[in-house]
Structures are given as structure tokens and as C-alpha cells.
């Protein structure tokens, strides 16, 4: 129990510090790296609550795939800080508005959370079932339609991204793998008798 408390404080403090560093770091790549650190620590908190499946999925999906693409984009961007700071005052009101809304929602969640059962009891509803199986049972029975709807939305987004970026250029020479594999020496090689001092 002491070890759990110790790790809780370690994860929580590193999480908050790295979340602050995300918005205060000058180099955007450092920001993304801090964001990844925050994700990993959040996964650590999930593990402490006994929700090991959620923790691992957080790492696989967000850290292993989504944040890689973030990092990718940010690394290749040429960010001009002077230009970014110019817009600060103009965007301040709308930014503040969003901050107030999000802050209010978070506060609401925090206040309604107090008094709910302890997280480790909530994470594993019945003692015998591993929580991976427990999530599966709930997700594929009660929330089946929501789950399917989420899948359809993601599929739509994926197709949308493909449609938006697909360009059919004319005059591009593409490789046809099937044709290439089907080649054999009979059609690919031509043997010619070359007369001396004449050439082809």
C-alpha cells in the first residue's frame, strides 16, 4: 500500500509537471515529448487503479500511434515564434472562453466524483473476472450500438481523409507489381546476334 501511494505521487507529480511543461516549453518538439511523458504517467495512474487494460491501450494507441504522428508533424513544421506571439491578444478572448468552459466541466466532474466508490473497486466489478474481460462484456452487450457507432464514425473519418488527399495525377509512371512478377526470361530478355564492328 505504501508502495502504491509512493508511485501514485510520483506519477501524479510528473504528470502535472510535464503537462505544465507542454504549454511552457519553447521548443514545440520538447512540448510533444512532454506530452508523451504525460500520457505515460497517466497510463501509470490507470495501472495503479487496477485498470491495466486501459493503461496499456492508452500507451499503445495514444503514445504508440497518435503521438508519433504529432511528433512527426511538429518535427517537420517550421514554426515561427514571433508570428505565433503576434496573434496572442487577438485569440485571447476565445481562448479564455474555452478555458472557462473546460475548467468548469473538469470542476463539475471533480466535485461529483467525491464520494463515489474507491476506484479499484469500480475498476474490477466482480472479483473473479479480469478487467479486460469485464470491459469486453460491458462493451459488447450494453454499449454495443455505441461501440459500433464509434467504429462507423472512425471509418467515415478515415475514408474522408483518403478522399481529401487522393490525387490522380496524369502521366505518373507507376509500378505494376503483378506485371513485374509475371515477367519471365522469355519476354524480358532478347538475345541478338551482333555483327562485328556494326553494332545494333
Amino acid at each position: 500500500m505504501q508502495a502504491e501511494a509512493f508511485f501514485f505521487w510520483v506519477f501524479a507529480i510528473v504528470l502535472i509537471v510535464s503537462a505544465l511543461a507542454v504549454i511552457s516549453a519553447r521548443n514545440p518538439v520538447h512540448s510533444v515529448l512532454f506530452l508523451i511523458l504525460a500520457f505515460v504517467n497517466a497510463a501509470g495512474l490507470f495501472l495503479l487503479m487496477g485498470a491495466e487494460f486501459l493503461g496499456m491501450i492508452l500507451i499503445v494507441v495514444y503514445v504508440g500511434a497518435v503521438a508519433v504522428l504529432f511528433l512527426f508533424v511538429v518535427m517537420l513544421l517550421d514554426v515561427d515564434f514571433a508570428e505565433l506571439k503576434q496573434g496572442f491578444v487577438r485569440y485571447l478572448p476565445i481562448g479564455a472562453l474555452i478555458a472557462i468552459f473546460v475548467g468548469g466541466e473538469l470542476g463539475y466532474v471533480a466535485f461529483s466524483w467525491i464520494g463515489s466508490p474507491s476506484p479499484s473497486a469500480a475498476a474490477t466489478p466482480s472479483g473473479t473476472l479480469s478487467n479486460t474481460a469485464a470491459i469486453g462484456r460491458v462493451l459488447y452487450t450494453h454499449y454495443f450500438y455505441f461501440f459500433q457507432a464509434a467504429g462507423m464514425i472512425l471509418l467515415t473519418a478515415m475514408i474522408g481523409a483518403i478522399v481529401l488527399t487522393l490525387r490522380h495525377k496524369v502521366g505518373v509512371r507507376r509500378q505494376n507489381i503483378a506485371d513485374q512478377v509475371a515477367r519471365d526470361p522469355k519476354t524480358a530478355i532478347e538475345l541478338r546476334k551482333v555483327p562485328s564492328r556494326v553494332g545494333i
Partner: protein
Amino acid sequence: MSSASPSHSDRISRPLLIAGVAAAIVGLVVVVALIAFFVDGGPAALGAWLYANPFGIFVRYLLESLALLVMVLIFTAILIYAERKIWGSIHLRRGPNVVGPWGTLQPFADFLKFILKEPIIPAGANKGVFLLAPLVSVTLAFAAWAVIPVGDGLAIGNINVGILYLFAVSSLGVYGVIMAGWASNSKYALLSALRVAAQMVSYEVSIGFVIVTVLLCAGSLNLTDIVHAQQSRYGFLGWYWLPLLPMFVIFFISALAETNRPPFDLAEAESELVAGYMVEYSASLFLLQFLTELVAILSMSAMTTIFFLGGWLSPLPFAPFTWIPGVLWFLAKMWCVVFMFSFVKAFVPRYRYDQLMRLGWKVFLPISLFMVVAVAGVLEATGWGAHH
């Protein structure tokens, strides 16, 4: 090196001295451990302390991790030597044969060379990230071994989501590469990092689906349970390599891509990118990158062994074969897969990048998606799955 003339002797004595000091330290640790073992009330009391006392449990995990670390490091040394001998013999060369008997000390000579040279940090590099990158890579590579069961119950962490943990750790491996490539402030390194990132993310998709079919068959995310699920009276015919043969092939090829091994070593294609993301790394920093690759190969082989080759199970499930300890079977299978990794490198030409992407997205992804549906359907229709 071994036939050095007297004038070179002072140059060789320094590595020897360091090796001697290291050996002395290891010896000292062993002696202290033995004394602690026998003085403090004998093995029984020590055993109780290691399993009951919170601090004892911590010490036990520490010792287990240390033992595993040493084992994996020795394996990497063997791997360096074995690979170079295998490539040598395929190329009709001799391979390393100078340092030590039959060249067996070559990896240690390499190791000393890396340690004793000067690490150079490029002037334009982002120093913090540059130094952090190899540490991230090597830590993640070793972290995968924490859940790998080398025998029945012989895993440091026998966690319920072991398979997800392995998948998560191997997908994090890409960060070491991206950070190294970006922080080096070199165009070769950056291009290589981009290649690796796209390559690893692409092949993770098919690896993920392969893992899904395996866990559908085993009915568990726990690695020990997955091996147990492969136990049957048919011996090696009951392991998953046969019923899931296409997935076994896809997993092996994807593992080659995931560890950046030939024919998918586009990250360090010498003719295009010099040494890729490692181009600015030298000495001990390069050693860490190099170690990462080798450990990743070993852990991918261990994963192949657990998922498809029955882990520590004996191939023939009757008397004389079942007497052999499971750890030896596990290691034998793992080294067979490692041998296949080396074998492929020696005679397969490198892929072109668009062909690599085509293979991942247009060949492996549809096949593995179809197999997930097919395997789930067969299990549901026949009731062969582990439990319902």
C-alpha cells in the same frame, strides 16, 4: 590484435586492466551474496524474507531483474558473434577468428572499443534529446523482457495483460529512433527517422492483428496462459505455428520490419543514408543504439517463440523429452528464430521503400484482417476456443 608486437602491449593493457577490475567487482558481489546467503539464518530464512518482507520483495525483484539483464547481455554478446559467423559462412568467409579462441572474444573487444572511445556530440545537436534518445531506446528494449516467461512461471512480472505490455513497449521503441534522428541535426538522420517511424507504425498494424488471432485462440492476454493453451498431446503439431501458419509467416516478416532488419533496413540503407539515425552517434552512445537493435531482435524472437512455437513446451510430449528443463527448450527455440533473422540478412536484397509500404498495407493488412474474422468464426462455430 592478439598477435600484437611488444610496442603495442601498453595499448592493450588498458582494456585488460578494465576487464580485470570489472571481473573483480563481479567476483566481490558474488562473494558478498554468498556470505549473506549462508550467514543470515540459512536459505530458508532468506527465502521467507525475500517473499514476505516488503523490502525483501523489492530486493528480490532487483536481483531477478539483474539476473535477467545479465542473461540478456550475455545473449547479445553471443548474438554478435553468432551473426558474424553465420554471415561469414554464407559469404564463404571465415568471420571473426582473431580475438580469443575461434574469435569468440570479438564481441567483448568490440564492447571495450565502444566504451573507451570518445563520445562526440555534434555542435548543432539538441543536446538533451540527443543524449536521452539512446537511453530511451535501450530502456524500452530491456523492459520488454520483464514479462517474457522463459519457463513455466519464470517471468519477473506475470501480468494479466502481458501481450499488450509487449506490444506497447515495442511500439514505444520508435521514439528512441525519432528522437535520435531529430536531435542529431543531420538530414540523413532525420530522413532515416521519418522512414523508421512510418515503417514501424505500418507494421505494428499487422503485428497487432496477428496478436489478436493468437489471443483469440488462447483466450487470454497472459503470456504464460498463451503457452499453456498450446499444450496438447500432439506436441509441436499443436503449437500455433501450424493452425495459424499464415499469421506465423506474417509475424516473422513484420518482426523483421519492426526491428529494422534486412530486407527492411531502410533506416540505415548505407548507400542512401550512411548509417541512418545512428550517423552522429559514436562510442558508448552508439553502443546503446547497437545494443537496442540486438535486444529487440532477441525479444522479437522470444515473442515468436511464445506465440507460435509453444514457449517452454517440449516438442514431443513424452518421457525423455519432457525431462529436459523448459528453459532449455525455450532458449533452443528462441535461438532458432534468431538464426532465421541472421539467415535472412545474409541473402535477401533490400526492399525499396514504396514496396515496403505496399507489402505492409496492401498485402499483410488485408490478409491479417481476413484471418482475424476467419479465426474468430471458426472458433465460434466449432467451440475450439479456450473458454466461452
